[in-house]
């Protein structure tokens, strides 16, 4: 039998996003015809950047089809990604409803690929961690990963001097979680704090949901971010291995 090829193509494409709008997405697609799962990657608030595109390519290297919708495309179609992110941030960030629509479009794109096995997972970092959980509570997905997303639990409006106008807790949405959840957190993080992660564990247990959480003692927020001071190589390495195993388990045909 011929071994599977590890070649993949990464490219900027157009997909159908929220409300039927055409949006940009960065994709990475293994060229082997063997059926495989897909991963929607949700970028952080600074935008659709080179570092997150590297993550998309890493999923293709691991054997998954992957797609990252540009969540700020609606705010400034065709603009440079950092300018579009600035335009979106000036409006207060990405509305939840629009996020769900764009993730749904990316998931549909992945399911339509010739070598898709029909399974799709979602992963997000920082604000994208919360959005990953939101998507998994709203859409028919097969696995979700939350990397240190703040305000899945906890009340952002309770923060003095921090008017998080466009962000609300997902506590009342967790009963709708439709797939297993992997959570990766830093013990030194304040957003989410270890108490908020414990509250999330409590609520998921109460609702009878399948989940797997890991908290790294040496890490704070954003420990996967290789170009930032918060990068923690050992935690990130272990985290990547857990992500690969988790998606390998739940996105297999």
């Amino acid at each position: 039998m011929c071994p599977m090829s590890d070649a993949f193509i990464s490219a900027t494409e157009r997909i159908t996003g929220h409300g039927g709008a055409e949006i940009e997405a960065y994709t990475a697609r293994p060229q082997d015809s063997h059926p495989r799962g897909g991963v929607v990657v949700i970028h952080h608030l600074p935008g659709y950047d080179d570092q997150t595109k590297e993550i998309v390519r890493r999923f293709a290297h691991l054997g998954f089809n992957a797609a990252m919708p540009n969540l700020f495309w609606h705010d400034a179609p065709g603009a440079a990604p950092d300018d579009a992110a600035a335009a979106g941030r000036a409006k207060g960030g990405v509305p939840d409803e629009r996020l769900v629509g764009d993730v749904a479009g990316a998931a549909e794109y992945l399911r339509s690929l010739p070598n898709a096995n029909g399974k799709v997972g979602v992963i997000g970092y920082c604000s994208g961690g919360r959005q990953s959980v939101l998507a998994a509570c709203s859409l028919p997905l097969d696995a979700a990963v939350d990397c240190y997303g703040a305000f899945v639990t906890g009340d952002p409006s309770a923060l003095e001097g921090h008017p998080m106008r466009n962000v609300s807790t997902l506590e009342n949405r967790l009963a709708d979680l439709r797939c297993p959840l992997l959570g990766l957190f830093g013990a030194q993080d304040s957003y989410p704090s270890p108490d908020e992660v414990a509250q999330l564990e409590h609520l998921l247990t109460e609702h009878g949901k399948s989940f797997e959480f890991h908290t790294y003692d040496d890490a704070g927020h954003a420990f996967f971010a290789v170009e930032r001071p918060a990068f923690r190589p050992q935690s990130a390495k272990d985290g990547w291995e857990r992500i690969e195993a988790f998606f390998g388990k739940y996105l297999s045909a």
Partner: protein
Amino acid sequence: MCTYITAKLDAAGSAKGADGWFTLSETTVYFDHPVHAAAEHTLNIDFRNPERGAGARVAVELTAQTARALAHAILETLDAVPEDLI
């Protein structure tokens, strides 16, 4: 974390961006993850004119210490200007 804290101000003046000078209409100020600066969080300022497109923007990402020093310098400079010039 992504703080989502954004202050938006009307602005009058000009800024020089990638395509030359443009007239300002808006300034946004936020403390959040930067795009380029090697820090977890920075005080970010975008001088913008959205009517001219998202690219009509001059962006800075400053450490909190730099941003405070800048704010003080701006106020001290303005305070030193004779009132009849303002």
